[in-house]
Each structure stands twice: as C-alpha cells, then as structure tokens.
C-alpha cells in the first residue's frame, strides 16, 4: 500500500473510496427490480468495505486515510414473487426480484456524495493555506 505523505493523499484516497461507494449505489439502483429465474442468479445489492489505512502502523500518529478493501454482496434473500406467466419463472411459477432496497440506496448515495464534498472542501481549504504559506515573508 502506498505511503500517505500529505493531505492530498489523505483526502484524495478518501474521495476515491467514496466514489467506489457511489459506483456501487449506481449499479444497485440500475439492477433494482430485475427479475431472475432462480434465487442464486438474482442480483444482490453490492456494498464496499472500508478500512482505515494508517500512515504509520506502529506510531499511529493520527494521520490516516481510507481504502476500499473489497466489495461484497449482501446476504439478504431476493424476494420470491408468484408470476407464472413470466418467461423466466421456475417450475412452480415463481420469479426472484433483485435484493435491492431503493430507499437504502438513495440514503447511501446522499451520504457518499456529502462525504465526498467534505473531502473536496478540506483539500481546497488546505491548498489555499499552502499557497499563502508559500508567499510567507513577501
């Protein structure tokens, strides 16, 4: 894992992680309501797994960022719906609707975009400070 040198690493990687989260939300919403012929094939909502990356694992000097260490499908079962006329219905006339909760995804989206904005704000503020510091004494 690459080194965390400055605030651009800290906030930049956090932004990348939030972007992965937004991408999973987009995939989940795109697949919401899709229908499959079996429980195993049905789409299950994907969630990123966040983990803190410390700049120094021994010292734990408070400087850390966040990385996505994996993307996992939730374990919730897809909804079983009786639709005997559906072309992909199983032998008993049931189809399986993707395990995606639209409300949950919308909340996830709002939260991810809000946190993305927070990180952008941090970077732009600190970049301004750096610029002023460079001009120190002039």
């Amino acid at each position, binding site marked *: 894992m690459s080194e965390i040198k400055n605030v651009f690493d800290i906030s930049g990687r956090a932004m990348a992680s939030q972007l992965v989260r937004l991408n999973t939300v987009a995939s989940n919403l795109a697949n919401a309501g899709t229908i499959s012929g079996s429980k195993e094939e049905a789409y299950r909502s994907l969630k990123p797994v966040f983990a*803190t990356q410390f700049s120094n694992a021994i010292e734990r000097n*408070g400087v850390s960022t966040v990385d996505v260490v994996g993307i996992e499908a939730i374990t919730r079962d897809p909804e079983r719906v009786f639709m005997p006329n559906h072309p992909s219905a199983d032998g008993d006339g049931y189809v399986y609707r993707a395990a995606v909760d639209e409300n949950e995804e919308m909340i996830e989206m709002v939260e991810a975009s809000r946190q993305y904005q927070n990180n952008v704000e941090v970077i732009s503020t600190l970049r301004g*400070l750096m610029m002023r510091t460079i001009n120190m004494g002039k």
Partner: protein
Amino acid sequence: MNKIASHLDFHAQALMLRSRRNEILASNIANAATPNFKARDLSFDDQMQKHASGTGPLKVTHSNHLDTEINVGRDRILFRDPINPSMDGNTVELAVEQMEFSENVTRYQTTLTFLNNRITGLMSAIRGE
C-alpha cells in the same frame, strides 16, 4: 539559536503544530464512514507548552538508538470523546470535526499573519527604513 531564529521560533512552532493538526483532522473527515475508526486529535496547548518548556522527547545520539519519539508520540495524539457514539464504532462526528477544522484553519492563518508581520519588521529593520 541565533536571535533571528528565536525571534520567529514561537510562531514557526505554532504553525507546524497547526499544520499537523490539520492533517489529523483531515484524516478524521476522510474516515467519517469507516466502521470502528476512532477520531484522533492533539492538544495544541499541551504541545505548545511542552515546546516552550523544552520538555520534548529524549534526544538520540546514535543512529542505532531506538527512536524515543515513537513511544512518546503515541501518547501525544489523543482520542476524541464522542458526544453521540454511533453503532458501527466510529467516533467521527462531522459537525465537530468541521468546526474544529475551520477553527484550526483560522488559527493557522492568524499565526501566518503574525509570522509575516515579524518578517516584515525584521526586513524593515535590516533595510533601515
């Protein structure tokens, strides 16, 4: 330490501490959604007092000596006491962190202004204006 350096030293140290604190607060904001992350912070007053009284970490005189900064360093960064702890074990509260961050940025700018004034003062003394 020469006179010019000591003239600027206090604010220079303050500026470095502020910048370090900015990084810690940026880390907290970056980890606002990470389960089990504990928000960190340093006590600016304590650190500044330590510097003023000269009681920093022990000096090492050989490159093979163990770095005492590591042991001391761990104690100096504290954990934030959350107002409303969340279920996932994360103690970052965005409102608190944003407030601390904006305060720290303002104080950084203040220190920078003080430093600039001192430098300008020295420059005009050198020029004899």
